[in-house]
């Protein structure tokens, strides 16, 4: 009996890989449609802050994630952009991660069309910049000192979307969606120093780390992981990849729990045999 149980510990890990693959694959192919029961306070705060902005207000969107964190962060970005377009906000997109550029293109290839938004009038995409901290500081005095052209080299100063925008004082909100520590920099170098409201979006694993900023209101709201994306989508009433991905997330999380419980129960039995 003891030896049989011990065999479970030495089980070929490829069996676990197979079970996980099935658990992830099935709900992606055939969504179960499990309801997203609760909306977290931080995601609701993020939504409320964007929702309270007046039409025409300028939102600086910093999208700093690459394909590795795309499943969690891309749906967040899409949901925020949809919300901003619905509210007729102006959007300026910046990035400090080279791998983000293609993902930004993919979003703006489709989403603006759904709301009849025009490039240069309603939104603009700025080029990738290295050294985020230096750029953030530079934007505080003169935005055009660092971003005088958009990503294809056209001058931005006279674009309707940039009307009345010179520095952070003219911006209503900064939203940073990232899988890196750039959100900390937005809080420290911009939010705190220039009194600009900052809302964040991050991966589920880094979500607990932003608790101190949320408590002190240095962050006005936070969208955390795929669940946060699903919550924001449900608040915007635009179900997307976050909502459809939540089924796979559900089953994968429960599989982890089941495995941890199983291994510990086996350990307990072995000890008492």
């Amino acid at each position, binding site marked *: 009996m003891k030896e049989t149980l011990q065999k479970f510990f030495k089980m070929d890990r490829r069996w676990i*890989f197979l079970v996980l693959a099935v658990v992830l694959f099935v709900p992606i192919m055939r969504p179960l449609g499990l309801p997203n029961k*609760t909306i977290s306070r931080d995601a609701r705060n993020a939504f409320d802050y964007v929702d309270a902005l007046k039409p025409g207000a300028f939102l600086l969107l910093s999208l700093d994630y690459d394909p590795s*964190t795309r499943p969690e962060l891309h749906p967040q970005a899409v949901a925020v952009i949809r919300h901003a377009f619905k509210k007729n906000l102006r959007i300026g997109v910046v990035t400090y991660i080279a791998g983000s550029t293609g993902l930004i293109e993919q979003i703006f290839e489709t989403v603006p069309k759904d709301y009849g938004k025009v490039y240069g009038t309603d939104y603009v995409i700025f080029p990738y910049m290295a050294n985020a901290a230096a750029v953030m500081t530079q934007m505080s005095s003169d935005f055009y000192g660092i971003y005088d052209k958009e990503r294809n080299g056209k001058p931005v100063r006279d674009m309707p979307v940039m009307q009345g925008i010179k520095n952070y004082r003219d911006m209503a909100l900064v939203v940073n969606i990232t899988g890196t520590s750039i959100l900390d920099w937005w809080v420290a170098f911009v939010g705190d120093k220039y009194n600009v409201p900052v809302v964040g979006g991050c991966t589920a694993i880094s979500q607990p*780390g932003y608790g101190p900023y949320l408590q002190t209101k240095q962050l006005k709201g936070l969208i955390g992981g795929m669940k946060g994306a699903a919550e924001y989508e449900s608040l915007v009433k635009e179900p997307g990849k976050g909502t459809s991905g939540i089924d796979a997330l559900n089953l994968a999380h429960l599989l982890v729990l089941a495995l941890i419980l199983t291994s510990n129960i086996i*350990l307990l039995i072995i000890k008492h045999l």
Partner: protein
Amino acid sequence: MKFIKKQIPLAIVMVTGLLMVASYYIPHKYSVDYVELMNKWENIVSAFAFLLGLVSLFYSHYGKIKRKADGWGYSLFVYIGFLAMVVPAMMTDGRQMVDGQVTSLGWSFRYIYNALSSTMFAVLAFYIVSTAYRSFRIKSRQAFVLFVAAFVLILGKVPLGQMIWDSLLGWTGQGVADIIEWIMQVPAVAGKRGIMIGIAIGAIVTSLKIIFGIEKQYMGKD
């Protein structure tokens, strides 16, 4: 010679560092101009650092290929990957879309970089699940506390877990969302805040040591 090699660099670091610190607290045009100038220089230096990193990477992998070191074949893919992204980028002037059409750079990004990067990260999920089964053993009180916190968080973070909690423990009148809220707001924040304060103090001390020339390792051995 020592004056040029040591004293002058140390003086530059000290003056530049002290001016940067002071400019944070002095809202004057001169200090703003100074910070802007430094930021531009920093960007230029960063660009050269990228180049230096690239040369170093190529040199190291060239050495592996030349020596036929273990796994030298993988080093070839460093060059292949580089060319697959840089050649289209140069051909398209760095544009991924032109007139609504995906360029060769856009194609490389979507079907090479995107796929490879996603795969690398996705593989982690399999290792995490396997490790959770093999290594998460409750052998002490501390491990038990960690397990309970992890159990509640994992369960409460997904709707299906919330439904299971409600059906099994709903009679307690305590929702899993409330418990998670408490864990995140009290013990998690307390721990994180301690870490943040520690890191900040460490960063200040290190910066002061560099500014005042106590820490000189960045200057090399000569």
